[in-house]
């Protein structure tokens, strides 16, 4: 009999869990030469990792939040306690526009790659010839470094020599070159397109993995019953991948909510703050404006929003876990 606490096996071909073993119980083993209980041994294994986390993630995070209550300059030692002044200031000035930019970017850069990636996964899942090769080929944009992605699209969007302007002019879609990264609206679209290019492959891989868990027989049975493609998608495909889709969308949303590289390199938050998201604004405040207190207050509010998202994510992934 398998104890209820047996770990969920990941790989399908894993052998059935054997009967409870000494390693699995948390009671101290009685054998000689083992001074530590299994529980203590298990905890000891996590100590190096936890120490790192505590020093490099947990402490800085808490300290950053504390900094939000001080007036502090990056270049100068010392700081003054100012209570909630920074927060009041942030809420008064940049929180709302930055939140709006962040939401526009995050929603756009989550839904667009999902649509592209899912469409591609559906196409590849029909058993096209060479779909394995195609899957590998389409992974490239996701693999290459974020900074390189930004350079590439900066060049494509270039107002004077960019290939996008060139192509659109040749095809007659526009009459004169557009300064894609220089106008507030097009800059945001450009940033979202760039991020879409970089992350649709991940969506494709995940959705493909989800699609492969949908039994082909179900499709065939539905087809025999006369269900059309749309009907089959709604009745068979979507219910089968809904769980994966939820997790993937949520994760991508969380990542985009704190995305930095592409935006910073492409536009630096400009023009006129049009693409300034939380990540960029906090970075600029701290390392360009040297106003640590202000940056930390803005970052604190940002963190609060992220924590809500992470909480939703953990709940969802646990629920999906129980389903599978």
């Amino acid at each position, binding site marked *: 009999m398998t104890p209820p606490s047996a770990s*969920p*096996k*990941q*790989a399908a071909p*894993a052998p059935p869990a*054997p009967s409870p*073993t000494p*390693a*699995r119980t*948390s009671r101290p083993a009685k054998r000689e030469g*083992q001074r530590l209980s*299994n*529980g203590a*041994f298990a905890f000891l294994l*996590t100590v190096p*990792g936890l120490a790192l986390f505590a020093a490099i*993630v947990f402490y*800085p*995070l808490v*300290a950053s939040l504390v900094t939000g209550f001080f007036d502090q300059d990056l270049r100068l030692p010392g700081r003054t306690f100012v209570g909630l002044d920074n927060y009041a200031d942030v809420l008064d000035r940049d929180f709302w526009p930055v939140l709006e930019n962040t939401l526009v970017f995050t929603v756009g850069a989550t839904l667009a790659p999902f649509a592209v990636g899912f*469409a*591609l996964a*559906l196409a*590849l899942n029909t058993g*096209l010839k060479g779909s394995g090769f*195609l899957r*590998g*080929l*389409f*992974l*490239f944009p996701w*693999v290459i*470094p*974020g900074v*390189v992605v930004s*350079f*590439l699209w900066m*060049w494509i969007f270039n107002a004077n*020599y960019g*290939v996008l*302007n*060139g192509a659109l002019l040749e095809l007659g879609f526009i009459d004169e070159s557009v300064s894609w990264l220089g106008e507030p609206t097009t800059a945001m679209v450009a940033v979202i397109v760039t991020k879409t290019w970089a992350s649709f492959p991940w969506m494709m*891989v995940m959705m493909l*993995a989800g699609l492969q868990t949908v039994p082909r027989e179900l499709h065939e049975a539905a087809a025999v019953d006369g269900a059309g493609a749309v009907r089959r998608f709604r009745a068979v495909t979507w219910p089968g991948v809904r769980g994966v889709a939820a997790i993937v969308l949520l994760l991508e949303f969380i990542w985009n909510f*704190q995305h*930095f*590289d592409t935006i*910073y*390199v492409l536009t630096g938050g400009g023009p006129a703050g049009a693409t300034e998201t939380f*990540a*960029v604004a*906090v*970075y600029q405040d*701290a390392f360009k404006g040297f106003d640590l207190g202000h940056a930390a207050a803005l970052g604190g509010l*940002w963190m609060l929003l*992220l924590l809500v*998202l*992470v909480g939703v*994510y953990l709940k969802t992934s646990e629920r999906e*876990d129980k389903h599978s």
Partner: protein
Amino acid sequence: MTTAQFTTADGASPKAPSAGPPGTPAGSRQAPRKPRRRPDQVRSSVAAWAAVGVIGLFGLLPMYWMLVTALSPPGQAFRFPPRFFPTEITFAHFRAFAENDKLFDYMVNSVIVAGVTALLSVVVSTYMGYSFSKFRYRGRKSLMNFVLASQMFPQALLLITLYAVFRQFDLLGTYTALILSFTTFTMPLCVWMLKGIFDTVPDALLEAAAIDGASRWRTLHSIVAPLAAPGMVAAGLFAFVRGWNDFIFALTLSGDDTMTLPPGLVNTYIGEFQTAWPALMAASLIVSVPVVVAFMFLQRYLVGGLTAGAVKS
């Protein structure tokens, strides 16, 4: 399906994939091997190819353009409207990258920092992943969730204090600062990947080792670790790639002598007036090569490894 349907399918769409090459008589030897498709399957395969084609333009053309620009002499790269097929090519920009001492130093820094990050991540994550996989104790689930959640903490916010902490300990601009900070965002992924791999190691093996008198350390190091070695290599490669690609930590915490390629390229090429685009595209290609090669090896771990941390637990 009846034979009649087969014939109809072929008659309705002579371009059905299962039809023999032009000129071959109907019912060629291919027929028995591959069942022919019904009309709606043909339609869906046409739709599938159309989707692949459109997304292919979006997904692959930019990379083609990167290559074309990298191979273009400046006169050609800045011609407008640009030429889709270049008329002359040059490898000068690749040579220039190789001959640039500064860029070479950035690359060495990248190799060192990403390499040590990968090693450290794997070692630390192996212990943690093993603990999560093979033991049951109070707080385990919370620890696992904390590790998973920690990769979602905002890096820009962490940096504010990390910068101060490293400055205080005089580590700003050192490899140590970069490696330690990189490890925190590579570890969550490594821990979850390795946990998944240890889950597939049968418990009976540990039991047998215990009966034979092996200590738990010995069991982990001499029996389990060698079994999990391919997974550890995969996790290490992932960590290497993440470290190689990182921009924000490297931009902020590195010094002139320890700067890695991503911020190094920004500093070198993004000029105030005119960016040297062909040279930058060549450099971009060179920077992408190690990552692309690493992922070719990682393909088969990709779905399993990534979904381990994301979709399942």
